[in-house]
């Protein structure tokens, strides 16, 4: 198990909470809620160790277009990078609904 924390600059206020996914095989859970400050904070807990670089790449891509001041907690159970990105997009979509 490994814990990874990454922060990003943010511009858009986030006013609601969104929960998606399950901590099941090949899947992950995302808890997205308003950030306590003007930045975005991501805290990842993953069952698979040694993939910090990949996590950074996936999140860099997501934060190219996501600008929400959000605290994002990710509880991962071996999801592929594609799955991670889909769940993040799903959470971002939940903010817009």
């Amino acid at each position, binding site marked *: *198990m490994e814990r990874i924390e990454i922060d990003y600059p943010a511009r858009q206020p986030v006013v609601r*909470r969104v*929960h998606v996914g*399950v*901590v*099941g*095989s090949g*899947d992950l*859970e995302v*808890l997205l*809620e308003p950030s306590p400050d003007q930045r975005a904070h991501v805290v990842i*807990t*993953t*069952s698979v160790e040694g993939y910090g670089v990949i996590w950074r790449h996936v999140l860099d891509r997501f934060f190219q277009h996501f600008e929400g001041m959000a605290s994002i*907690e990710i*509880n*991962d*159970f071996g999801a592929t990078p594609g799955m991670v990105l889909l769940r993040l997009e799903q959470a971002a979509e939940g903010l817009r609904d």
Partner: protein
Amino acid sequence: MSGDATRDYRRFLSRSSFIEMTARERAHAIVDAGSYRELLGPFDRIKSPWLPLQDIVAQSDDGVVLARGTLDGQPALVAAIESAYQGGSIGEVSGAKIAGALELALGDCQRGRPIWPVLLLETGGVRLQEANLGLAAIAEIHAAIIALRRLVPVVGVIAGAVGCFGGMSMAAALCSRLIVTRQARLGMNGPEVIEQEAGVAELDASDRALIWRLIGGEQRHAVGLADDLVEDDAAAIAVAVRDAFARGSPPVERSAQVERLAARLACIDPERPPDAGSLRLLWNEGAPR
């Protein structure tokens, strides 16, 4: 396509699989539209303190979704187990969530405010990593079901694909009404456990047809251990749950029919165990269901 085939095809397409839903989606699908309100949800972060100590990632709701809502306007409580998280296993927290919610419903019922309790059971039983704490919580769930069902029917649903095993199979057996699909399984020990402990000659856990003939929803319904056999369709299951409450509690709860159940066991010769078909004949012949 013939007319019949087209009709079957349309009927199939119009269904919404309950099995494929997450626990949260299932709870939403059961209660009246717009009435869903979750208790101790993911953002409350009431999660297992034990799994991270064993290097296992914990889920923010510990795999149990508690929802208050209504069923045809009647206040209801739905407890749904997420089978994708740790096999739907019951740990200290997830078990306490179910037991605590049932106990609060009991308090309301005793004060003359009936709450209809629904258990969406999809679980391998106790979470082995939390062993005794999980078992203690399951015992509390059993006690709460027995106390509650004196006042209000307790309705259980096993949809599949995990099924319901271990201590939670006893929770299912304690329910006033039990609803199953053909894909459901109900048993004390799961097939893999039996094969591991007693050998493949005793039970081949990879023989899916055999497993479902023995412990599948259709068989459990046919021998009277489940009350309703429904399609894997969210709308059909939601209707079956409401029907179960409309019918009310049975005159004598199934698990309280001790003499009848003992007589059923007595007519089985363990040296020559019956197959699925002969068990149906044996248990249904002459004996009231």
